[in-house]
């Protein structure tokens, strides 16, 4: 694949107090790629995602979006770009949270159009027409005027995906997008993500849905103890000769 590299992480490390959560992670993601990150709880998956989306500051390493440096190492310390730069870089990605984090006081429509209008200066008419398209696409056309509290978990998560997509990010991160949902609702959210994959949206997904990761991903990363223990195509990972990887995946398949 000669596609453009959208995200590049080199030697990322991150600790909380004495504990090293991420030890040394390097990762690059190309345009159109779908990468799933799996691994046991406490393996550092979510922290990796939070560092990549700059919700958490990494301690070491570099973070580069579309060739623009967000953070890099200087004299053994991690320095971040200026605020203005980071604001620009931040527009390259979106994040979908495990708990949706919709704004409860805003209607579905308002949740989707507010950021494009306030942050990107998009006109209301344009924001609304784009939001309608997204809602249509995600099967929520009749929910524009509803409030988040009136929606099921699956609907809320789809709204939060629409909210992220409204800013037209180049990469979309998902942090366990279905962990707060029951199996039925999980299905409707996975369907949306599948649809995005078909449209070649670049996505990085932290998930416990093994079958889903297998069917959808171009690449699966298995993380444990703060490092990437194995990575490869779904076929490679599911047929891994590493016992630990097989054991972990096996637990989900039984």
């Amino acid at each position, binding site marked *: 694949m000669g596609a453009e590299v959208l995200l590049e992480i080199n030697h990322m490390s991150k600790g909380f107090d004495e504990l090293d959560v991420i030890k040394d992670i390097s990762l690059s993601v190309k345009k159109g790629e779908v990468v799933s990150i799996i691994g046991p709880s406490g393996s550092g998956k979510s922290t990796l995602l939070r560092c990549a989306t700059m919700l958490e500051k990494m301690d070491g390493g570099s973070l580069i979006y579309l060739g623009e440096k967000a953070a890099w190492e200087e004299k053994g310390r991690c320095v971040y770009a200026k605020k203005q730069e980071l604001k620009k870089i931040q527009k390259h990605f979106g994040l979908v949270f495990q*708990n949706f*984090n919709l704004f*409860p006081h805003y209607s579905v429509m308002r949740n989707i159009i507010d950021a494009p209008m306030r942050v*990107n200066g998009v006109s209301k008419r344009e924001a609304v027409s784009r939001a309608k398209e997204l809602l249509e696409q995600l099967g929520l056309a009749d929910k524009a005027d509803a409030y988040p*509290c009136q929606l099921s978990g699956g609907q809320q998560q789809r709204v939060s995906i629409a909210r*992220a997509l409204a*800013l037209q990010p180049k990469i979309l991160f998902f942090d366990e997008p279905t962990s707060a949902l029951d199996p039925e609702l999980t299905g409707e959210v996975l369907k949306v993500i599948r649809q995005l994959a078909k449209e070649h949206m670049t996505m990085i997904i932290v998930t416990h849905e093994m079958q889903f990761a297998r069917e959808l991903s171009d690449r699966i990363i298995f993380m444990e103890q703060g490092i990437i223990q194995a990575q490869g195509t779904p076929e490679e990972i599911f047929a891994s000769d590493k016992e630990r990887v097989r054991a972990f995946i096996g637990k989900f398949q039984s």
Partner: protein
Amino acid sequence: MSTGTMFMQLGKGMFSTAEIFFLTLLFSLPLGLLVSFGRMARNGIIRGISKFYISIMRGTPLMLQLLVVYFAPYYLFGANLRGYRFPAIILAFSINYAAYFAEIYRGGIESISVGQYEAAKVLGYNKGQTFFRIILPQVLKRIMPSITNETITLVKDTSLAFVLAHAEMFTIAKQIAAKDTSVMPLMVAGLFYYIFNFAVAFAMERIEKAMDYYR
């Protein structure tokens, strides 16, 4: 004194009471927000000062604060300020209520989940937008019952302005009661306070209802 004159006079006093009430709210609500920011500041000195301020305001009687605020300029600097009586009352009430409001705001702000801030950050909102568009509206909804409580207390506390001989309703009721040796003016004043608070509670309930469209 005829009942009619008494009602007239108390009505005038009621106007003065309402004046203290609204002006105090006007100043103490924003000031309280500012103090709550100080109370939650990352800077330890600012946090310490705010904490001390709140502790003094809540830990000493409002009546004493009224006297101190009014007489301090004279006793400390020999300043004889004309027309300072009413501003002193508003100032004392405002700084006192700001301390209570600050703690209410803080409770509300700290109850908002960190996920709301994170979602706003990832969507690119700046700090001001995040606070005023995303956080504060949710805070206001949550703290409304506590604000109602304080507001009702304030209506009654306005009577403390009598220590500075300000002609609000309570001061007038007391004067008439003494002159006529009758308990009637006090009863009527009580009725007026009750009606005022009934209206306040009604208004606050309407505001709460208006914010009821989401959870």
